[in-house]
Structures are given as C-alpha cells and as structure tokens.
C-alpha cells in the first residue's frame, strides 16, 4: 500500500502545534500546587520560587494551596492533572512516603510516583539530632550506650507516624541497632514543644527550628544527617563521620505531571535554573535559613530514586504498628 503523503499532515500539524505551544509557553498563568497550608514548608518554598519564575517568564506564576490528608490531596491532584506544564507541584520528601504507606495498608493509592516527573530540586535541609540539654548525653556514642542499656527507655517525638521526622529517626535507630520509644505528634511544632517540655528525650528536626533553642541552652545537638557539616553549627559532626552510613534531608522539589511535552519541560527546567540564581530568591531562602540545593531533572531523578528507595525500606522496616 502506497503511503499518501497527505495522511501524514495531521501528525505534522500536531508536532508543529506542540513546538509552537512550547515556544509560546506560557500563554496563561502557571499554577504551582503546594499540598500543605500557607506557612508550611512546601508553601514557603513555592512562593519565592514562583515569584522568581514569574520575573523570568514575564507571565504570572500562582501558588495554590491544595491541602488535605498529609499532602495526598494536592499531590494526587497534580498527578492527575493535564500534562501541559500549567499545573506543577512543589512537593517535599513525603511524596515518596505516601504511596509506600498506602501499599503497607493495602489502600487504593492516592497517586503513584511514576505519575509525576521531576523538574528540579529546590532545597535540601539535613535534619539535626537534638537531645534535651539537661540530659547527660554529650555525644551520639553516649546516647547509644544508654539506649542499649535500656531498650525502649529513651523516647523521641516526631511530626507524625511515617512522617519525615519519624523516618529520619528510624534510619538512625536502625543503623545504631537500638530501640527507642516513638511518640508521634501532629506536626513539627508540637513535636518541638514536647521535647522543650521534657516529655521526650530526643528529636530529629530541621535546623532552623531548633537553633534558637540550642542557643538558649535548652537543647543540645549531637549530630546532623547531612553528608557534610552545616554552616550554622560547624562543630556538629555528621552521622557519617561518626560511622553511621545514613543521610537524610528534608527536601523540596518541583514536579510536573507525567506526559508533559519535552519542549515545555525544557523551558520549565531552564526557567527554574535561572530562578534559583535570582537575588531576591536567594535572599528569601536565607531569611528562612533553608539552604538552596539545585539539581536539574536528570540528577534530581537519581536523587529522588535513591531517597524513595531508602524511605520505602524504612517504612517496610517499621511496618504496621500493632498496639
């Protein structure tokens, strides 16, 4: 059968249209969905990113808070959105936790990770391990020794079951071969209140949140989960230095629904790369005391895969909690 050249026209037109779309993109406002309420980490990261992107694209970029079910509502919203580049997601590490938790409980997953593709990593903040300053442990070694003497005798608070702060602690507990009592709270704020009130002994936390309390002498930092020391606490060793092969970051990254055309993805990646260089953006992040950690899509994908695998293992290890 002879191929009629005309039959290929619609295909050609489609290809052209996509190219034109990418060139013109964006012709209307882009929405960045923050799956947590205003003032939460995702929101705080999304807003400066959006305003820097806006300057570069010369077109509005709007942050939309779509909250609920620990972020699952907003994330599944973007995962199921039209892949046209106009609906993006500012997600935190928890993006890899929710599908795993759904799997654990045989729930219909709200979304799957392969429904989303990474655009860029924006920030990564290593968590800090703190204990109450009035407790005797001056180092991780002393803490571990005490914990080995009294299994489940020492306790820690977290932002919630299977939450990021729980996961960070679980990595340490597993690496050190100890058993601690886990007391989940509803959010990082109440978890901090619990350790300040002396109701628990330890906490994993974002540095910015605990540094004021370290300075005031209420809390003592023992280690940091990053692969290098942090600027704000230069004397604080990393877990790696101490011989524990663990790393954990509270990160924020931009995602798009799977199937977003390559030209549009390229434009988005270029825009975000430039946006993260913006002076105002840098200033905003400095005020939030959150380190910028840019990774372009391919490297971010690698980072994400590794992080997701580590979290999946941790969740499986924790398993279902039986009471």
């Amino acid at each position, binding site marked *: 059968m002879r191929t009629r050249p005309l039959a290929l026209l619609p295909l050609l037109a489609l290809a052209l249209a996509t190219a034109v779309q990418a060139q013109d993109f964006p012709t209307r406002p882009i929405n960045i969905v923050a799956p947590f309420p*205003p*003032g939460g980490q995702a929101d705080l990261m999304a807003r400066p990113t959006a305003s820097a992107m806006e300057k570069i694209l010369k077109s509005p970029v709007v942050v939309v808070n779509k909250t*609920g079910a620990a972020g699952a509502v907003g994330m599944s919203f973007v995962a199921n959105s039209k892949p046209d580049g106009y609906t993006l997601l500012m997600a935190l590490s928890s993006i890899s936790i929710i599908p795993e938790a759904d799997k654990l409980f045989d*729930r219909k997953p709200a979304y799957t990770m392969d429904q989303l593709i990474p655009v860029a990593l924006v920030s990564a903040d290593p968590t800090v391990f703190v204990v109450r300053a009035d407790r005797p442990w001056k180092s991780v070694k002393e803490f571990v020794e005490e914990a080995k003497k009294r299994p489940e005798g020492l306790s820690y608070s977290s932002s919630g079951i299977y939450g990021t702060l729980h996961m960070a602690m679980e990595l340490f507990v597993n690496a050190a071969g100890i058993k601690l009592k886990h007391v989940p709270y509803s959010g990082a*704020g109440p978890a901090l209140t619990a350790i300040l009130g002396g109701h628990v002994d330890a906490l994993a936390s974002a540095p910015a949140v605990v540094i004021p309390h370290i300075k005031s002498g209420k809390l003592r930092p023992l280690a940091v989960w990053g692969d290098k020391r942090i600027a704000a606490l230069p004397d604080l060793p990393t877990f790696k230095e101490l011989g524990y092969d663990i790393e954990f970051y509270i990160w924020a990254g931009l995602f798009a629904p799977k199937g977003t055309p390559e030209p549009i993805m390229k434009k988005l990646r270029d825009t975000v790369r430039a946006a993260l260089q913006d002076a105002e953006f840098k200033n905003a992040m400095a005020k939030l005391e959150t380190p910028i950690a840019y990774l372009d899509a391919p490297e971010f994908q690698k980072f994400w895969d590794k992080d997701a695998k580590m979290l999946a293992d941790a969740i499986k290890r924790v398993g*279902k909690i039986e009471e």
Partner: protein
Amino acid sequence: MVETLQNLTHGFAIALSPTVMVYAFAGCVIGTLVGMLPGVGPLAGISLLLPASYGLNATTAIVMLAGIYYGAMYGGSTTSILMRIPGEAASVMTCIDGYAMTRKGRAGPALAIAAIGSYIAGTASVVGLMLLAPPLAAFALSFGPPEYTALLLLGLMVLAYMSGGSVPKSLSMAALGLLLGMIGIDPMTGYSRFSYGVVELGDGIGIVPVAVGLFGVSEILLTAGQAEMPKVIKPKLRDLMPSRQEWNDSVWPIGRGTVLGFLIGIVPGSAHIISSFVSYAVERRLSKHPEQFGQGAVAGVAGPESANNSATSGALVPMLALGVPSGPIPAVMMAAMMVHGVSPGPMLIHQQPELFWGVIASMYVGNVVLLVLNLPLVGVFVNLLRIPYPIMYPAILVFSVVGVYAVNGSVVDVWIMAVMGALGYLLRKFDFETAPIVLGVVLAPMLEMSLRQSLALSSGSYTVFFTRPIAATMLGAGLVLLLFSLRPLLAKGADWRQRFGLQEESTLEKEEEK
C-alpha cells in the same frame, strides 16, 4: 515594672505609627469579616492573607495577622446571635442564648454585650500576656500528654453541666461527636478509619462544616418546616442597648470568661473553641437561674464571647515567649515571622523587643478599634433582621456553602455540612442538643492523641495519669463533676441543679464577705 512601662511606651510608639496603625486596622476589619462569614474562621482568614503579608516587615505582618485573629472573635458572634449560624467554631455556644435573645427582640443588647465583653476580655488578657508571658509559657510546657488527657477529660465532664435537657441525651450526643472525630487516619498507627477511600476524609471531619451544618442549616430547615412563618422582628432604637438588669447579669460572666479563656488559651490546642464551651458550662453552673440558659440568658453570651477573645491572647503566650505554637493559628503566624527572617524562639522578647512590644501595644489599640467599630454597627446588623425570611435564608445558605467550601476548596466539606444539617434537623426534632456533638468533634482527635501518647510514654501503664500531680488533680476534679452529674440519675431528685446552684452561690457570697 518601670521597665515594662518603658517598653510599653516604646511599643505604643510603634503601634501608633501610621503604617502599623493602618495594618492593625485592616487586620481588625478583615478579622471581623472572616469572623462573620459562616465557615471562614480566623485560621482560614490568616492562611489566605499570609502571602499578602510577605511584603510587609515582620512587626507589621504580625500586627495585622493578630488583628485578624482577635477581630474574628468579635465578628463571630454577629451571625451566631442574629441567625444562629456560628461565624466561626468558637461562637457555637453563643448561638444558643444569643439567638434566643434575638427571638425575644433583644438582639441589640446581645450584640452589644458580646462586643463589650470581647473588649474587656481582649484588653485584660493583653495585660496578662504582657506581664506574665514568660512564667506562664514555662507552665504551659509542663503540660505533657498525661496532663492534656486529664484536661480534656475534665472538659468532657463539664458537658454534663452544659446540657439543659437530660444528661443521658447530652452524653450520647457527645459520644456521637467523639465517634465522628474518630474518622480519618489513625494518628498513632497510620490506619485509615471510616474514610471509605475518600482521600479528603483522611484528615478527619472538619469542625467548621459540622458546626455550620448542625446549627445554621438545621435552623433554616426547622424554620421552613413551621406551619407559620416566624414574624420578622422589627428592632426599636431603645432596644439596642442592654438594660440595667442585663448589665448586672453580664459583669461576672465577663470577668470569669476572661480569666478562664486566658488560662485555657495558653494550653496547646484549639483553645479558643474549648474556652467558650467551658465558660458556658461554668456560667450555667453558677447561675441563680440555670433554667434560663437556652432561653436567652445574657450570661450565656457574655461568658463564652469574653472567653474566646481572651483565649486568643493566651494562645500567643507560648508563641511570643518561647517560640512554640500552641495551635494551628499561632503556627501560621510563626511561619510569617520566619519569612521575615525572625526566628521565633525563647530569645524573641530580647532580640526583637520592637516586635514583641509593638504587637502587645497594637493589641490594646486594636481592641479599642474593634469596640468603636462594632458598637455602632450593632444598629446596622440588627436591621438585617428586617429582611424577610424568604430572601434571607436562601442568602444565608449560599454564604454557608461558599464559606465552608472556601476553607479547603473541598466539595467533601460542603457535603459534610449538608449531612450535618439534616442530622441536626432530625436531632432537634427529637429534642436533642447539638452543641455536645461539636464539642465531641473538637475534643476527639486531641483526646485520642494525648491518651495514646501518654500510654506510649508509659509503655501502656495507666498509672501515668495518677502519679503526675497536675493530671491527677484534674482527673479528680473531673470525677467529682461526673458523680454530681450522675446524682439525679441515681437519686431521681427533682431540680437538683437549681438547688446545687443556689448552694454554690451562697458559699460564694460567704467567701466574698470574708
């Protein structure tokens, strides 16, 4: 003391500067509006306006957000009193007697007392915040899960006194509320409960749709079901201000509400909501005429409205003194500080004196602004009652749907409101009170969390509640309350409540004589 005055003078210099004044005023007006809109409460209002505050400096931003918070407590009473729709969850108790007063043609005095009570409580609690913030915040931290469990149980025991009708009925309603509060992801294990695959139910049932449905929608349904349309109440000018008797009946409830609200506000949680329930119960308990509650007792408006205002200042204590949030609203305000590079922490008062004292001074100013704003508006609001029901009720339904939807942008919330409206209608037809359901929904997640946290800490041993002094004291008090509320069931004594109320009053009088 001299130092405090100096600092305060400095604070007033900041608070009275034109820019800060403008934003304080804007915050108060916005707060009044979000308070009045059914559904949209202070949390939604502050969250929506948080991004707008990013362009301001830290002090101005916090001044404005705080203005929205306490402004909402003023506004919340308006629709509760006029239409029996809680403008926000802390005004649920105001619905009962406030609306009853409206039906008696006393809407003006109810609104005026609510505004004046709010003003007194607001101002007095700022004094408390200013003088006592650091020691009180330290006390608040000593509240761990066991203390918290005991406090919430005590709160539930208070229920028995809240009910006008039968104790079993109100306890069963509270149980229903607690059950509704169980819906969602189990906070300790991550299991989904009763959510039937609806992702939005993972967070549980919101208080706002439940309150608006049970109170507002059910009222509209009940009115529609009446054979005869209720008469439109035409307010007269001389009925706008409270009578001497109403004043006298309000003075003590305002005072008690202020103290209670402030103390409850310091303890983490949705304190402004709980404080209004507790205040109502206390007033009812202390009243010489408990039978008037539910029929338009002015004390039932004065107490809760003062308490919820004073709780807002209380809630700011841990935030400003220690940098820890005592609930979702202070948490959002702390995020606003962080955006401006101010790290909330125990050194805030020393490192950012202009912020702390500026906010304190602006709260004095803001409360005056709100009083000046709200008192003349009483006349305007009361005239809303002239609108015929066939026009007003559909309009209210529209506002309720929009308001409930706006909070999370979730249609599921609108459905919850509709279901709760139908449920509220049925329950009221059968003479059940619906307020305990709201209290149950508020308390259930907190009670469950703190109970199970306590048991996690004690490795499953219940002794933790009796070995800690604060927890044991509160549990003891709760037990006594429970026994007293069960007494009529056991002894079948008639009108025990009134007798007990009188007895209490006479002992109070004796104490005053001393």
